[in-house]
C-alpha cells in the first residue's frame, strides 16, 4: 500500500518540486550573471583581426576573431553547436616535444550532447497529444527498425559516449587528478538515467499508455490516480525520480555551463575594441601624477629639452 503512495509522490509531486528548483535556480543564476557588469571587452582572438583591406581574412578568421555583430553571432553558433574550441584541441607529447591534434574529446563530447538532445526531444512525445509531426520524424529517424521495439541509436550512443568520458576521468592520470566527486556524481546520475531508460525500453517493459497519462498529467496539472500508477512497473519510477533529482541538482552543478557559455565575454564579444570603445560602468577616476606635477618634478631636465628645440641630435 505504502508503495502506491511513493509512486504517487514520484508521479504527481516530485516533478513539480524538481521543476521549480530547476527553473528558479537557473533563472537566479542567469540573473546573477546578467546583472553583474562587464568591465572590459576581452575576446580571445583566434583569427586574423580586421585591419587593412589587403590583409586577407578567411571565413575561419571571421568566426574566430569576429568584427561585426553577425560574425560574433556566427562564432557563438559554431562554439555552442559544433564545439569549435574543443575541435582545436591538441595533445602535447613530451617525449617528442610537439603538439599533435587530438579530437577524441571533441568527438565524444559532441556525440554525448547531441544524443542527449535527441533523447530529450524524443521524450517530448509523451507530453503532447497529438504528437507533433517533427517529433515523430525524429523518433522514426532515431529508431533502428531492424529490431522490435525499434532500437534507439542515441540511447546507446549517449551511454557509450558517457562511459568514454567517464573512463577518461578514471583512466587518464591527468584527468583523474582534476576530477572532483561532483564530476563523478553528475556522470553517475546521467548514467543511471540512461541505463534505467534503456532497461525499461528493452527488458522491463512498462505500460506506455499509462506513462503517457502520467506525463500529460504533469504538464496539464491533473495529477494521476492510484489506478494509473499501479499499471506501471517500478523501473519507471526509478527512472523518473533519478531524472527529477538530476534536474533539481542542475542549477547547483557545473552543468550550468549550458547557460554560462552564452555569457562568456571571451567568446560573445566582437574583436572591434579600437573601433568601438567599450564602456566600463564602474570605471574609476585616474589617480596618478598629471603632466603639471611631472613638470614640477623634473623641471630642469624638461626645460633643457625645450631649450634644445624639442629634439635631440646625435653627437658626431
Amino acid at each position, binding site marked *: 500500500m505504502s508503495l502506491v503512495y511513493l509512486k504517487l509522490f514520484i508521479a504527481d509531486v516530485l516533478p513539480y518540486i524538481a521543476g521549480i528548483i530547476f527553473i528558479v535556480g537557473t533563472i537566479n543564476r542567469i540573473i546573477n550573471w546578467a546583472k553583474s557588469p562587464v568591465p572590459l571587452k576581452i575576446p580571445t*582572438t583566434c583569427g586574423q583581426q580586421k585591419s587593412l583591406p589587403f590583409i586577407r581574412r578567411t571565413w575561419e578568421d571571421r568566426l574566430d576573431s569576429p568584427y561585426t555583430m553577425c560574425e560574433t553571432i556566427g562564432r557563438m553558433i559554431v562554439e555552442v553547436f559544433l564545439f569549435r574550441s574543443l575541435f582545436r584541441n591538441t595533445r602535447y607529447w613530451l617525449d617528442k616535444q610537439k603538439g599533435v591534434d587530438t579530437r577524441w574529446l571533441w568527438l565524444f563530447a559532441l556525440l554525448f550532447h547531441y544524443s542527449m538532445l535527441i533523447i530529450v526531444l524524443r521524450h517530448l512525445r509523451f507530453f503532447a497529444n497529438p504528437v507533433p509531426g517533427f517529433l515523430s520524424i525524429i523518433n522514426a529517424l532515431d529508431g533502428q527498425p531492424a529490431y522490435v521495439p525499434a532500437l534507439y541509436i542515441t540511447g546507446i550512443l549517449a551511454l557509450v559516449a558517457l562511459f568514454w568520458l567517464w573512463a577518461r576521468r578514471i583512466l587518464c592520470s591527468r584527468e583523474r587528478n582534476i*576530477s572532483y566527486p561532483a564530476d563523478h556524481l553528475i556522470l553517475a546520475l546521467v548514467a543511471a538515467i540512461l541505463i534505467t531508460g534503456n532497461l525499461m525500453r528493452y527488458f522491463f517493459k512498462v505500460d506506455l499508455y499509462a506513462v503517457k497519462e502520467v506525463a500529460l498529467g504533469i504538464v496539464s496539472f491533473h495529477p494521476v490516480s492510484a489506478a494509473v500508477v499501479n499499471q506501471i512497473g517500478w523501473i519507471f519510477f526509478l527512472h523518473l525520480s533519478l531524472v527529477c533529482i538530476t534536474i533539481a541538482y542542475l542549477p547547483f552543478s557545473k552543468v550550468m555551463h549550458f547557460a554560462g557559455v552564452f555569457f562568456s565575454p571571451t567568446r560573445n564579444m566582437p574583436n572591434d575594441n579600437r573601433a568601438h570603445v567599450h*564602456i566600463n560602468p564602474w570605471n574609476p577616476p585616474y589617480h596618478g601624477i598629471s603632466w603639471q606635477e611631472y613638470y614640477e618634478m623634473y623641471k630642469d631636465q624638461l626645460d633643457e629639452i625645450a631649450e634644445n628645440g624639442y629634439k635631440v641630435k646625435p653627437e658626431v
Partner: protein
Amino acid sequence: MVDIEKNGEFVKVEQKFTSWRDLLKPVTEKDFKPGFYHYPILKRDAEQLGIPYRDWDPLEPDWKLPEGWKETFLNKFKELLEKNRQFKLFMDICVRCGACADKCHYYIGTGDPKNMPVARAELLRSIYRRYFTKVGKIFGEWAGARELTEDVIKELYYYLYQCSLCRRCSAFCPYGIDTADIVWRGREMLQSIGTVQRFSYISIAACARTGNHLGLLPGGVAGALQSVAEDVYDITGIEIEVPINKKGADILFVTPSADYFATPHWYVCMGYLMLFHELEERYGFSYTWSTYASEGGNFGTFASYELAQKLSHKIYEEAERLGVKWILGGECGHMWRDKHQFMATMNPPPKTLEDPVSPITGTYFENAAEAKIVHIAEFVADLIEHKKINLDKSRNDHWKVTFHDSCNPARGMGLYEEPRYVIKNVCNYFYEMPEHSIREKTYCCGSGGGLLADEVMELRMRGGMPRAMALKHVHKRYGVNYLCTICAIDKAAFPTLFEFWKLPVEVGGMMELVGNALIMSDEEQERELDLRGNPLKKNEE
C-alpha cells in the same frame, strides 16, 4: 619522467599525478622550490602605490600577514565578483574537461599538476565555493571547497606568479574561460593584503613616477634616444634629429622603454628612427616621442585594474597636451593587450584626437577609429602595400627568419598577418615554426606577465621549453638563425632561453629587419653593415 635533450645534456620533466584531494591541499613554503618563487615587494614601491607593506620572507613559516587579512581578502573577493561578470562566470562554469591541461607551457615544462590552467583556477574556485556558494558551505571538501588559511595564501602566491597571462588555455577552453583574468583577480586579492611579488611592482612604481618602467628621467630618455641616433649615424652616416615632447606634431609615438635601453630592442629602435626619418625626408612626416608618456608597455595589467589604468592614462593625456592627431604604438606584447583591449575603456580617449589616417598613404585605419592608436605593423604594412618606401630585401639575406607570434598581439588582438606581410617584404628567407606553436596556438616565451624576474629563472627556462623546441625544429630543418618577435619581453627573455636550450639563434624585432632593408634617400654610401654591425652578405661574396 621525460628527459629533454639540449646538446648532450638533459633536463628532466617529472610529471606528477596526484588526486583531487591533493588539488585542494595547499603547498607551503616547505615545498617552494628555488627558481620558482618570487621575492616580495619592496617597501618604497609598496608605499608609493599604497599597498600594505610588511617585512616578510616567503621561505619563513610565518608570513606576518596583516591583521584581519582573511576579512580583507574575502571582501576583495566579493567586490571583484560583483564588479566582474567574467570572473563570476569563470568561477561557476568550468566542467574540468581537461582540454586546457597540457596547453600551459608551465605545465608542460614543469609537470607540476597545479600548473594546469584548470588547477590554477581551482586555487581560487575552491575558496569561492566555500565562501560564496551554498553547496560548498554545506559539503565542504566533497564539493571541491576549502577553508581560506595562511597556507592557502602561500599557495596562491606561489602559483598565481607561475602564470604569464598568455591566454593560450583560453583559446582551447570550450567556454572560453580566461585564466589570465582569473589570475589577474587573484593577484588583485593578494595585493589587498600586500602579498605580491617584487619584479613588476618595481616597474609599476617607476612608471607611475617617471613615465616609464625603467624609471628613466626626462634627460635619460633624451640621452638614450640620442645614443640610438648615434648608432644609426655609425651605420648609415645620416644624422637624425629625434623630436621629443614636440607640440603640434601629427603623431605621438609610444613604445616600451626597453626599446631605447636594452639589446636586442635597441636595433628595433634604430629601425623606428630610420623609418620615421625617411618618411620625414620624403613626405614631411611629423611625429614626436614623449618623456611623460615614455612607456608603451603596462605592467599594471599584471597587477590590478587600477594600476593598469594608472599607467595607461598618461598616453592620452600627453596626446591631448601635445595636440597630436593620433597615436602610433611600437612593438610590444602585453602593451597591445592593454592598448587594444583596455586603454580606451579605462581612459576615455580625448576629443581633440582626429581620425587615424596615414599622412603618407591616406589610408584610414578604420579598426582604430575610436581608440586612435595604430600598431606599427599595420602602419608599415600599409606603407609597403602602397610602395611608399624603397626596400632592399637582400640586406637581410644573412638571416633565415622565423616569426614568433607574441601571446597578446596574437590572442588579445588578432595581429597575425600584418607582421608576416612586413617580414616577407623585407627578407628573402622566411620559415614558419610548426603549426601547433604559431598563430593562436603560439607558446609564450615563458617570462611574460611579470615573470621576467631573475629569481624564477628555472621556471622561465622550463616554461619556454615548448617554444625553444619548436624553434629547434626549424633551426635544424631550415637553418633558421633569427627569431623575429614583436614583443619587448620576448626580446629580453629569448636570448637567455636559447642560451639555456643551446640554440644558436639571434633574437630581434620586425623593425630591425625593416631598418636593414630600408633604402634611405639621403644615404650617400652603399650600406656595408646591418644594424648590429654585422657585414652584409652581398659584401662578403
